[in-house]
């Protein structure tokens, strides 16, 4: 033994430790990857050694490598090994590694349950601490459920460090993963709020704060308690949490707000901690404290101080909070405009962006032009492109917000060279189109000035808009030919593709206009020259690298060539060409397309005609610019036209479009522009055309009529207005000035034009907005539990010291649960969901099982036993008579014990008949004073010949037990793995001592040669009872059944069929008589006890599959008729199959 230790420490001396690794990496800067890969190889070697110190060291290094981004998931099992070391220094390393590397889907987590439980109940508080920390990182729903009770016990533990951590991490995480635990645990959590230890207190506050944020109404009753805490606590971090909690509670209880306002204001006045101040201000803003304007004013004042502070952080937060106030109390913020404009000059970009956000909300009709002017100055100064872009977007947002409601002077707006929103404006207000078109034409003419300097920063986007406007409203152009020429300049080819595409498209529109204007002329030279110009210039675009440009250009080129031919024959073509671009644009609400209801019987996924070949060419139109108003062809001017007429026209136009080969690419106003999915174009989008009042969510109907009416009237006045334009403008400016002083002047400002804000079009029967949809998958939903109801029995935490894994798998259990659920009113909402989840859960379990090994099955069978002992063997009654001597001695005790029914049942694996003397697979039966139960056996997947047996030792007597040694008489086939250097008959020391009433777990690895036969191993456990110093000995038997070598492995039916076809499998069959249970219970039972998974099930027939740890395939075909069940089985190992079938038969002979 001593030699071994020396050997171990020498090994360690030569190993690299973490420091060496870090140093090494630093010294190998050039070939770091190579160095690390050699290190990983070394680590792999180290992990293979038995010495736990070496392993821990290796795992420690792995943790570092993991941080550097290397995948270490292959070492997960080793990490578990190190975690289970009894020495804290190693255990700590294991847990650290686990907390860094493990996640919910790490399969070995299943193996840690007992280890964690052990550590949680360890007398060493550091063990507990490290286990808790680790658990918080990788807790899974299973772990949460199994360990919930242990954690609850810990919460009331006397030790403060433990308690603190417990309440925080576990509770919250456990609640999240296992909501059923919340109700039973809540009273304890509540107690902790008043804990004398500040750490515990703050932890409890943390947890409740998090819980309450999601389901505040359940925690209202705690308000007085928190109120007390808030006024008494001096810990700022805790205060912040409490204030946050109140922030969540106040919306539910307005009186609370009134009560809180005083302490909050006090805090705001008194605290020196900026974070607390900030939190208070935030809460006041967010809470329903609107009644007291005074507090808002106070907040704004405080925020002003923050913003004026030289500390950039405070400035930033001040602005952030300010923007929150802005939403509720815009007036109080607006008075600080000066300060915010100052912030625009700040050195820090994020501060400037915040200030910009604020400005957005501060805009009014009055100050819009001033603010935008300031912003434009900043655009000129802005150094970074991102910031400049942001500025521009903000300017646009500011101008366009709420449908341009603040814009009083559209000429001004359009003339801003950077505003790429003219399409929106000019579509909405045709009154200003003339002006806009003129502006844009000039812009296009001078485009060469812009392109050079602006290309890099996106300002050339404005050209996109300009080109579109000029094309669409070309009838307003004074000199279309000149603009056309400008649009076809070779320089245009340097612009981004999407702009070129628009250029080409709109050049065609202009071309049409030119033709039209020349129609009457007897002299056709201009028209022909124009055609020639097009033909000359378009090839440049045909060669474009951009597909869309290319396509459009070549189409139009062909068209123009054709037109030219016609022209030469003196055919009048203008009318037809112009018809290509017929149609009027009308603003459409951004969501309109989405809201078109799908007519009954329309399958959007089905092809109606053959797939469209090129209909999507225009989908690529960048939508950003049209985001606000999407052009659509519809004719608002014809409101008065009756339905029939409309329908007729629509029909006619459809006809026209159908006959027109260029229709698809003809105009961006085509119906298809905004439809992304192929095949969608057949939806009757035409509905949008209807000029009847449309429903707009959120707007009262009367409102719409007013607007519609306005719209109509305006149309009548259109011509008149144009003439009056100038006059009005003068009038406006005069009035505007006059009213500027008055606070209510905003409403009175008369816009330059009687521009009405058009209701954006929405289709009929637009579905109501569903924005507030809650995420059904929100885990917090599950925590919405009424905490005031008394606990029902069914809700008690599973008090079980072992894994409770598969309890719901038992059919009997299922029934119980359901009835429990119906009885329990609080479950009414969750019940259905949970039922579904259960199914899901089962599926998931199965998949987990396959990767984890035998362990789960063992524990499940145990529970099954506990639940229906009558149908299974109850082993502890089968106390072996081997130790009569002892039995006599402690008979009294034993009786008591039986009455109590031990928590640790002895489980076993189904197999031998109930009354057998031997202990079942994996079950060790013992006498007092040390009942021992084998807890589980894990097949090692990496190594088909290894099985890990975990034994739980429970001390049921009143004495302290120590020096336990575990020994098994090896058979030829199965051997207990002993450390190197020990003889074949040496026992293994159990690495712990057992105080009375304590249980602990140890693991022993067995090497198994052949797995085709079940086996029983005899073993002994020796130990010393401390008080009497007597040496005691206990005999037991370990039973390895064949099923315990099977691993539930899911199998797809095709793979299953292939397997059967392969012909490598030998068959066998068995008949079960008198099986009186539903088929699905039968299947569940086979799955459950024998680790099979169902491949397919058809009526009363099912195929099942499982695999042994050594890779044998076992296939079953189960059929039932009446009370007879026949099982045809195939396996590549007939002996194994025979034994498995026997075991199955035995399982069913019990019931």
């Amino acid at each position: 033994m001593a030699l071994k230790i020396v050997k171990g420490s020498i090994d360690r001396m030569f190993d690299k430790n973490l420091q060496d690794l870090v140093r090494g990496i630093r010294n190998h800067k050039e070939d770091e990857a190579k160095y690390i890969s050699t290190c990983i190889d070394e680590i792999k070697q180290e992990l293979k050694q038995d010495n736990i110190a070496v392993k821990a060291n290796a795992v420690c290094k792995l943790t570092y490598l993991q941080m550097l981004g290397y995948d270490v998931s292959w070492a997960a099992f080793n990490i578990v090994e190190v975690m289970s070391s009894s020495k804290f220094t190693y255990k700590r390393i294991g847990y650290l590694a686990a907390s860094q590397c493990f996640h919910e889907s790490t399969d070995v987590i299943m193996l840690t349950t007992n280890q964690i439980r052990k550590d949680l109940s360890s007398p060493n508080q550091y063990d507990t601490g490290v286990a808790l920390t680790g658990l918080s990182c990788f807790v899974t729903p299973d772990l949460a459920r199994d360990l919930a009770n242990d954690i609850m016990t810990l919460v009331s533990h006397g030790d403060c460090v433990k308690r603190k951590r417990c309440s925080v991490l576990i509770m919250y995480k456990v609640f999240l993963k296992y909501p059923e635990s919340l109700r039973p645990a809540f009273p304890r959590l509540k107690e902790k709020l008043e804990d004398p230890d500040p750490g515990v207190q703050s932890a409890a506050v943390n947890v409740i704060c998090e819980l309450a944020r999601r389901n505040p109404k359940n925690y209202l009753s705690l308000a007085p308690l928190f109120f007390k805490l808030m006024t008494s606590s001096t810990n700022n971090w805790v205060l912040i949490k409490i204030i946050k909690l109140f922030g969540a509670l106040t919306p539910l209880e307005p009186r609370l707000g009134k009560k809180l306002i005083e302490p909050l204001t006090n805090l705001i006045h008194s605290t020196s901690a900026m974070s607390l101040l900030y939190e208070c201000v935030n809460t006041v803003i967010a809470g329903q404290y609107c009644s007291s304007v005074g507090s808002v004013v106070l907040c704004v004042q405080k925020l002003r101080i923050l913003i004026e502070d030289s500390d950039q952080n405070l400035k930033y937060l001040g602005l952030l909070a300010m923007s929150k106030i802005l939403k509720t109390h815009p007036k109080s913020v607006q008075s600080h405009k000066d300060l915010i404009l100052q912030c625009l000059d700040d050195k820090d970009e994020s501060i400037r962006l915040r200030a910009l956000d604020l400005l957005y909300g501060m805009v009014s009709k009055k100050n819009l032009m001033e603010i935008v002017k300031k912003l434009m100055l900043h655009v000129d100064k802005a150094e970074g492109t991102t910031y400049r872009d942001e500025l521009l977007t903000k300017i646009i947002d500011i101008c366009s917000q709420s449908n341009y409601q603040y814009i009083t002077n559209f000429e001004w707006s359009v003339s801003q060279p950077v505003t790429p929103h003219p399409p929106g404006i000019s579509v909405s207000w045709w009154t200003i189109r003339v002006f806009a078109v003129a502006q844009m034409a000039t812009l296009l003419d001078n485009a060469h000035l812009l392109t050079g300097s602006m290309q890099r920063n996106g300002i050339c986007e404005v050209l996109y808009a300009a080109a579109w406007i000029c094309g669409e409203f070309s009838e307003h152009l004074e000199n279309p030919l000149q603009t056309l020429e400008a649009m076809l300049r070779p320089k245009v080819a340097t612009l981004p593709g999407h702009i070129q595409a628009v250029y080409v498209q709109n050049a065609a529109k202009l071309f049409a206009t030119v033709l039209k204007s020349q129609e009457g002329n007897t002299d056709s030279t201009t028209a022909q020259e124009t055609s020639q110009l097009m033909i000359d210039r378009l090839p440049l675009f045909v060669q474009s690298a951009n597909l869309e440009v290319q396509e459009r250009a070549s189409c139009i080129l062909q068209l123009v060539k054709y037109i030219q031919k016609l022209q030469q024959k003196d055919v009048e073509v203008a009318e037809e060409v112009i018809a290509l671009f017929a149609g009027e644009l009308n603003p459409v609400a951004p969501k309109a397309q989405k809201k078109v209801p799908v007519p009954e019987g329309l399958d959007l996924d089905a092809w109606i005609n053959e797939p469209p070949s090129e209909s999507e060419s225009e989908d690529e139109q960048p939508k950003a610019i049209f985001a606000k108003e999407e052009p659509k062809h519809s004719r608002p001017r014809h409101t008065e036209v009756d339905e029939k007429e409309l329908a007729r026209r629509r029909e006619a136009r459809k006809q026209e479009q159908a006959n027109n080969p260029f229709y698809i690419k003809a105009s961006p106003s085509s119906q298809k522009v905004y439809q992304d999915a192929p095949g969608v174009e057949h939806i009757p989008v035409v509905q949008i055309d209807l000029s009847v009042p449309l429903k707009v969510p959120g707007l009262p109907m009367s409102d719409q009529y007013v607007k519609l009416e306005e719209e109509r009237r305006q149309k009548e006045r259109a011509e008149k207005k144009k003439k009056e334009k100038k006059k009005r403008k003068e009038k406006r400016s005069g009035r505007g000035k006059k009213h500027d002083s008055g606070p209510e002047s905003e409403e009175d400002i008369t816009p330059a034009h009687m521009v009405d804000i058009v209701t954006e079009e929405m289709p009929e029967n637009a579905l109501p907005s569903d924005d507030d949809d809650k995420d059904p998958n929100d885990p917090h939903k599950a925590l919405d539990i009424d905490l005031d109801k008394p606990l029902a029995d069914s809700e008690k935490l599973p008090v079980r010291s072992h894994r409770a894994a598969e309890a719901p798998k038992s059919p009997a259990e299922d029934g119980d649960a359901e009835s429990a659920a119906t009885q329990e009113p609080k479950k009414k909402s969750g019940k259905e969901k949970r039922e579904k989840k259960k199914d899901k859960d089962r599926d998931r379990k199965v998949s987990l099982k396959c990767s984890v090994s035998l362990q789960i099955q063992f524990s499940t069978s145990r529970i099954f036993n506990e639940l229906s002992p009558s149908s299974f063997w109850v082993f502890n009654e089968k106390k072996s008579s081997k130790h009569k001597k002892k039995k006599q001695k402690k008979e009294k005790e034993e009786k008591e014990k039986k009455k109590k029914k031990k928590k640790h049942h002895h489980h076993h694996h189904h197999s031998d008949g109930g009354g057998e003397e031997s202990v079942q697979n994996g079950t060790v039966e013992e006498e007092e004073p040390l009942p021992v139960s084998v807890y589980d056996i894990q097949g090692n997947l990496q190594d088909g010949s290894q099985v890990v047996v975990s034994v739980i030792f429970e001390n049921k007597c009143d004495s302290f037990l120590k020096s336990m040694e575990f020994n098994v008489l090896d058979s030829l086939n199965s051997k207990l793995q002993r450390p190197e250097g020990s003889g074949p008959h040496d026992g293994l020391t159990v690495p712990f001592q057992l105080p009375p009433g304590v249980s602990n777990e140890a693991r022993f690895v067995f090497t198994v040669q052949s797995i085709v036969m079940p086996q029983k191993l005899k073993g002994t456990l020796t130990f010393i009872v401390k008080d009497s110093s007597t040496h005691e000995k206990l005999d037991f038997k370990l039973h390895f059944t064949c099923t315990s070598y099977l691993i539930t492995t899911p199998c797809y039916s095709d793979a299953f069929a292939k397997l059967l076809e392969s012909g490598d499998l030998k068959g066998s069959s068995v008949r079960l008589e008198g099986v009186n249970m539903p088929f699905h219970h039968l299947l569940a039972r086979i799955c459950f006890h024998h680790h099979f998974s169902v491949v397919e099930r058809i009526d009363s027939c099912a195929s099942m599959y499982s695999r042994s740890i050594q890779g044998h395939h076992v296939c079953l075909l189960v059929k039932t008729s009446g009370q007879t069940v026949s099982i045809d089985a195939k396996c590549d190992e007939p002996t194994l199959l025979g034994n498995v079938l026997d075991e199955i038969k035995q399982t069913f002979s019990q019931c």
Partner: protein
Amino acid sequence: MVSGVNSVVPVLCFRAAADQRMIKFVLMVNRQGQTRLSRYYQPVELSRRAALEADVVRCCLTRKKDQCSFVEYKDFKLVYRQYAALYIVVGVTDTENELSIYELVHNFVEVLDKYFSRVSELDIMFNLDRVHIILDEMIQNGHIVETNKSRILAPLTALDKMADG
């Protein structure tokens, strides 16, 4: 026995965790962008970690001294502090109080300073596990649990005594 096993599919958990108010991760990086410590309180795939770290670091390193220490990053926020060549970056959800995190970072560094007596980058590299203990003592499960320096260091000193004795 409650049999309705509530399972939350991992993916969903991750998504939903985004709306919790908490610390998402703590990073320590040096000026060269090398990670010196990383702790995630929300599972992030290993493959995505490296990219995330690089991106986060770039975000913070490019900022000047006169800029504020809060960065809006994707759907959450970064709070960072620079100590000599070492940056401590904390990723927090949107609703977390930035200032308290900012102060927490300083608190953390003070604790490190106390333990290592004038902490340096090398201290952190060579004693990663200890730094983790300190961090775990302060932040658990993405929440601040302890800020008292001596209480934070208590387990560590006990541990050192254990190792010595």
